[in-house]
């Protein structure tokens, strides 16, 4: 280095011999946030004179007069300035976030975006800062084409599901999340610590083999820069939250009229004799929805010396709920440390450690028996009760005599008797060593780890909210549990770059990975909690039950060992090809059935690199690319194992004794899903890169979907008590569609700069094969109806709604007589009842007429984002939409006395009164059978974020050593355009059975005020 410098100086000296030189000094800063930029290359054009800026961003150079200085720095736009005299030059460089030089993470390596041959989306730091999400996942909605997030609850801290290019699996569609090289999760990171997010959507994910089929989200967190002064950054916001919607329900009088009418029509005495003198008119929604508070503080500092750089961040989020706010609050603390150091010139160490601590409360005690997760919706949930509970009851009045059915009770009493706590602690991160023995040969060794504990406690006090209510408890109990997850990944990979004959560029990557994931669970229950109070709810203070086991434990140990390789070649950056092969061994499957290879190949043509391409043309960049490969989805674990969970009970010596028997028939052949992914795409930039277009056609064919309850011969013993049919890999689904993204930004050097972008994804999902043609059935609607309302069946989308088709309302007996009989559905028909369609045309309406009446998978996803800045002001808006999806109105209880939507004001009350809403009656009808009367179009357009900011001029803040001081106000979830009646058209849960709305906790609207401060 010294030699080179000396050479440069020497040459400068030589040059100065025959031209007039002046000595020029100056300083380089980042234009946006006024950060000092050390290490900026300063080069004199057409001369061999160059230097770099020092620690304070200063430089000094002797140059010929009138020469042109070029300032270049990674991540910033290059700037040229002509030297006219020796006045010090103060240069401000603009960010170059969307330049072609963007670097994307592709798994075990990085690549310049213009060389990428797969379908990749990138969300940068600025977008995340602008969107200002509470959870990282929210930054992906509408900004990444083909990606959709959904949540079963808007409750703070609730899990957010991510689907990339739709739902292809009936078991698991969650993408793999890799944070700085470790297997992580988006909800454990502070959004402020994220530097960029790369999403791999196609066969390029084959580098992750058996875990890549649902797409891969690669998160890079912020790190310090070497040779930079310490920078502090403090970001905060606080605000109010409220529900976006309350349902239009009946008031007490309207309600009483309908209840009376229902009873009268069946010849029963009416309930409310005096409509003018009803006891109450309680608005239960008003009582359970709260305006609540949110605040977030995030602080970090970063910098670096000659060999070491650091980033330290900490944050605290406090978020109350909007449904009974004290019962659904959430606190999240994070600390993040990133440390990089050069141990030797060719040996680099880097580490990321992320600590998470959170505590959460939820509005109901309902525990999903399958997942163990707390659920906040469902029959008997608090919103369900707020909708259904009678308005004639007083706030503190329980339904003592069970007027409203077993699943409906006073939501306020429910709230007052709900006690739960969930505390989580996590420590995760990675340590890696990178060794470069010779130029272009890199050897990386990395340990990723994630250790996560949570402890939960739920208290069920002695409770009687009315006769036979499902929430009643005769004996108080406290349930406590501990979960521990330990996940380690040890990876070694080697990468070598070589260029032959100046045009043949090769890069090879070869590596291995070993992963161990151990999950431990311990759960116990204590009974008879002292004083029946939450304060005493602890197993230590409680008693044991007299029979049955009160504690459970579970341990799983999953291991992977993998080797992978990738070979990339390009001819002069013009023709690009990349081949990937990964071999995975997974302990989740039978020993003889654990190995699989996942290959993929991608290729591209950079037309603009062709010699004939004129760089002055309108089209500044044009690339065609295609990819094909196989990627896995590691579902189906442990299905090979024959477990002993069957029922074995017999009477011996006059008492029942329990023994042991085999449970579900094992499937030794059970394995993962394999997805064959095809993607053909084009990247286009015009007008000096200002207009960008990305278009992709994709087709994912997913094979070996797991089909449960697969019929097999009875000789195998599947029909024994507690046994069951095996789960086999027997289905195939196909997702195909296209993605389109167009964005425009003007030259950001202007005073008024703006950008707009729009993306559109069209998606078509279809189950293409199930061996033996056995539909997978599920979902539940109403109470006590067959759980066959959502299906996975050949020729239909996964989880489509399976029910009866309606054709208006019978207006009179003559119409009923002229129509095929509906009596086989279970009840007789009268005028005012729903007319069902004889779909199979056999002259009788029965179960066989059930058909596809909608599906929860949107046909189109859209994102629309825009922003502009003028002088010190900035404005941004993000919106997203889903079109062509349906949701089932399943928050209505089938009981004559419950409250209901004002939709029922327009019910049928006589010939010609309504051809849509059936009559009100207590007599048995078929009207509550699952039909398209309950299916609504839930397409929506949501304005997700609107933000206005003002950055104080630097002149004002400089004296305070503040490099940036911005204040902003934003509204999250401002408005949703939809025709859907329920709370939240975007909410969903599950796969088969998705889209059944039992009263989803709506995502709140948030009014925020915030400050960004850098110093």
């Amino acid at each position, binding site marked *: 280095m010294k030699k080179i410098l000396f050479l440069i100086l020497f040459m400068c000296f030589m040059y100065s011999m025959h031209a007039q030189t002046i000595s020029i000094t100056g300083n380089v800063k980042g234009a946006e946030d006024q950060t000092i930029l050390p290490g900026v290359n300063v080069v004199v054009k057409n001369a061999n004179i160059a230097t770099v800026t020092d620690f304070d961003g200063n430089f000094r150079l002797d140059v010929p007069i009138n020469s042109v200085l070029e300032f270049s720095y990674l991540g910033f736009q290059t700037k040229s300035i002509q030297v006219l005299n020796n006045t010090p030059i103060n240069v401000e460089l603009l960010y170059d976030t969307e330049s072609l030089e963007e670097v994307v993470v592709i798994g075990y390596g990085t690549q310049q975006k213009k060389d990428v041959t797969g379908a990749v989306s990138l969300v940068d730091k600025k977008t995340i800062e602008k969107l200002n999400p509470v959870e990282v996942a929210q930054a992906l909605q509408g900004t990444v084409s083909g990606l959709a997030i959904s949540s079963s609850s808007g409750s703070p801290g609730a899990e957010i599901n991510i689907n990339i290019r739709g739902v292809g699996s009936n078991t698991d569609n969650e993408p793999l999340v890799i944070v700085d090289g470790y297997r992580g999760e988006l909800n454990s990171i502070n959004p402020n610590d994220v530097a960029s997010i790369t999403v791999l959507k196609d066969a390029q994910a084959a580098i992750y083999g058996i875990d890549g089929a649902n797409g891969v989200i690669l998160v890079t967190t912020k790190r310090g820069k070497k040779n930079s002064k310490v920078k502090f950054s403090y970001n905060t916001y606080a605000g109010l939250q409220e529900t976006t919607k309350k349902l239009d329900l009946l008031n007490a009088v309207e309600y009483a009229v309908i209840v009376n009418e229902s009873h009268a029509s069946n010849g029963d005495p009416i309930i409310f004799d005096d409509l003018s003198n009803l006891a109450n008119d309680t608005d239960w929604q008003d009582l359970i929805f709260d305006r609540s508070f949110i605040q977030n503080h995030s602080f970090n500092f970063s910098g670096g010396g000659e060999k070491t750089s650091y980033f330290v961040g900490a944050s605290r989020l406090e978020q109350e709920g909007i449904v009974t706010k004290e019962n659904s609050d959430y606190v999240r603390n994070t600390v993040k440390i990133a440390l990089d150091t050069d141990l030797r010139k060719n040996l680099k160490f880097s580490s990321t450690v992320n600590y998470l601590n959170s505590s959460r409360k939820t509005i109901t005690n309902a525990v999903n028996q399958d997942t163990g997760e707390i659920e906040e919706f469902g029959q008997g949930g608090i919103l369900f009760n707020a909708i259904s509970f009678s308005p004639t009851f007083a706030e503190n009045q329980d339904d003592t005599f069970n007027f409203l059915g077993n699943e409906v009770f006073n939501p306020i009493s429910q709230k007052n008797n709900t006690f739960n706590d969930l505390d989580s602690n996590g420590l995760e991160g990675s340590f890696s060593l990178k060794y470069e023995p010779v130029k272009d040969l890199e050897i990386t060794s990395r340990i990723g780890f994630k250790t996560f504990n949570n402890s939960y406690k739920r208290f069920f006090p002695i409770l009687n909210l009315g006769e036979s209510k499902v929430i009643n408890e005769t004996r108080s109990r406290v349930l406590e549990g501990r979960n521990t997850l330990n996940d380690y990944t040890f990876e070694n990979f080697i990468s070598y770059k070589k260029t032959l004959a100046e045009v043949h560029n090769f890069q090879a990557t070869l590596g291995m990975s070993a992963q161990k994931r151990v999950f431990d669970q311990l759960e116990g229950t204590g009974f008879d909690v002292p004083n029946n109070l939450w304060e005493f709810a602890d197993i230590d203070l409680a008693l044991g039950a007299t029979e049955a086991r009160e504690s459970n434990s579970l341990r799983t140990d999953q291991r992977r060992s993998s080797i992978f390789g990738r070979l990339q070649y390009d001819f002069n950056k013009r023709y690009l090809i990349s081949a990937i092969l990964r071999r995975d061994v997974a302990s989740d499957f039978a020993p003889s059935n654990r190995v699989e290879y996942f290959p993929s190949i991608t290729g591209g043509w950079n037309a603009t690199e062709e010699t004939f391409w004129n760089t002055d043309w309108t089209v500044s960049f044009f690339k065609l690319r295609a990819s094909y490969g196989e990627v896995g989805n590691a579902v189906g674990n442990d299905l090979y194992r024959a477990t002993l969970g069957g029922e074995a009970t017999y009477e*011996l010596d006059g008492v029942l004794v329990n023994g*042991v028997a085999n449970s579900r028939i094992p499937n030794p052949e059970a394995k993962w899903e394999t997805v064959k992914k095809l993607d053909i795409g084009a990247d286009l930039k015009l007008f000096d890169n200002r207009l960008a277009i990305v278009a992709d056609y994709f087709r994912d064919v997913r094979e070996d979907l797991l089909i449960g309850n697969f019929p097999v011969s009875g000789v195998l013993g599947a029909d024994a*008590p507690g046994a069951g049919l095996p789960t086999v890999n027997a289905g195939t689904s196909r997702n195909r569609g296209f993605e389109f993204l167009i964005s425009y930004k003007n030259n950001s050097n202007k005073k008024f700069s703006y950008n707009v972008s729009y993306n559109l994804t069209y998606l078509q999902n279809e189950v293409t094969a199930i061996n033996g043609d056995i539909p997978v059935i599920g979902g539940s609607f109403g109470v006590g109806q067959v759980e066959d309302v959502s299906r996975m069946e050949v020729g239909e989308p996964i989880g489509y709604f399976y029910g009866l088709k309606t054709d208006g309302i019978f207006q009179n007996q003559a119409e009923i007589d002229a129509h095929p009989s509906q009596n086989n559905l279970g009840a007789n028909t009268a005028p005012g009842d729903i007319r069902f369609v004889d779909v199979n045309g056999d002259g009788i309406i029965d179960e066989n007429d059930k058909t596809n009446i909608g599906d929860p998978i949107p046909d189109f996803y859209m994102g629309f984002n825009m922003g502009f800045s003028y002088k010190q002001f900035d404005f941004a808006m993000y919106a997203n939409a889903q079109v062509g999806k349906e949701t089932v109105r399943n928050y209505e209880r089938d009981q004559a006395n419950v409250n209901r939507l004002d939709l029922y004001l327009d019910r049928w009350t006589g010939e010609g009164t309504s051809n849509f809403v059936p009559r009100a009656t207590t007599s048995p009808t078929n009207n509550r059978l699952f039909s398209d009367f309950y299916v609504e179009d839930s397409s929506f357009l949501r304005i997700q974020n609107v933000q206005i900011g003002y950055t104080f001029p630097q002149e004002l803040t400089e004296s305070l050593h503040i490099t940036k001081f911005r204040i902003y106000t934003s509204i999250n979830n401002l408005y949703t355009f939809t025709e859907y009646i329920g709370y939240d058209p975007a909410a969903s849960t599950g796969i088969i059975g998705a889209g059944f709305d039992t009263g989803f906790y709506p995502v709140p609207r948030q009014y925020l005020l915030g400050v960004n401060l850098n110093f």
Partner: protein
Amino acid sequence: MFSLLFSCSEGFTDETSVFQIDSENFFNSEDDYQNALIGAYDLLQSTYMNVMVGEIASNNTSSGGESASDNPGIQQIDDMDHTPANANLKNIWDWMYAGVDRATYILEFENEGAEFEGKEQYIAEAKFLRAYYYFELAKWFGNIPIKSEGRFVVGDELTIPLTSQKEVYDFIESDLESAVNNLAEQAPQIGRATQGAARALLGKVYLYNEKFNLAAQQLDLVINSMNYELESDYNLIFETEGENGVGSVFEIQYSDAEGAGFDCLQCSEGNVAVGFNGIRNYSGPLFDTGFSFNVPTQNVVDAFENGDVRLDVAILDIDAWALETGATFAVGNKHTGYYNRKYIPRQGDADTGDKNLTNPNNYRAIRFADVLLMAAEAHINSPTGNQALAETYLNRVRNRAGLENWNQVGSLLNAIYQERRVELVGEGHHFFDLVRTNRAVNDIAGFESPKNNFFPIPSEEIQFSNNNWINNNY
């Protein structure tokens, strides 16, 4: 370097440490054998279907139920127009094979697993149970798939052929011949198989297999063991107090201690048939309500001789009872006015929900009277048999019923057949007696031979086995 890492990592995935017991590493102690055995006994409770539907198949009872479309599978069998698509036949097939599966699971670990004193008793019980389930399957379906070693696995349906009914009987005999030597005369717990139960079942299988001499030998051993005698009060046999009584050679235990639902009838610990047999919408003394299936015909009522005390025990004349007690009831499908009094619900049990499915009435699977009559039949048919002994056995049964000795009119064999019918009415034996003695064609309306000698193998099994397992008569 990579090959090294690679070979290391291969073992890494095999070393998972999970505290999980699965079926292949289960048998580590005597308790484990006992626990698995409970699982194998459990399926005996699902034989309620065999008993109920078997009786309906005969000329003793009619299907009944609410209407002609109530449980169509049962209605079809009553009318002898059943096909391979029959839900009840599928249940019998699935449940009996589930029993075979659970018994065979223990037998797979006959030589592996823990060694301890008395292990042979567990193995013998498992063989008894496998024999019991296979015998039911052979009686119902005739030619069936069997597997001598190990449980059935996926794929067997395509490769294992049907075994003829006779060879299935031979196979069952070998299981039982081995079991009798290792079973105790007194069961370790009430409800478990004894040596006498295994001998009685073996004698019965020999009889069905027309090995009359061997049958007579085994059944004589049971009779001469002095472990059993005829309960003097015939009525007591079928009441709670009579459970596991002196005349009970093998009895299936039912309980009302646990609830049950219609979604898993085989999971019930109660006798589901009892609720099905019960008086429709009954309100009155002594009995409890039910679904009015399995109603006795006039034909069987007429089969009783005058003075037979068994008539009023076996058959409830509901109209007379209602008149006498003021009880009320509803009339169901194929109402005959009679109910199968031995196995209808009694008041006084726990009524655990669904109370129709949790009646605790044990099923007296092999009664001493049955053994006597089978022995008598075997002696008559055996060339070396003892005719006089046969007549003695017959008369012991007759005398207990308050009847005189056999009047020597007609053949002794027919007298034994007649006695079996009235002694065992309502207990699910008559249909198979008629079939094995070639009397079904004459006695059962709609019965065709050979077609109806065996019930059809369920249509699902025909599909799974790609026509490998099919009864071509259907």
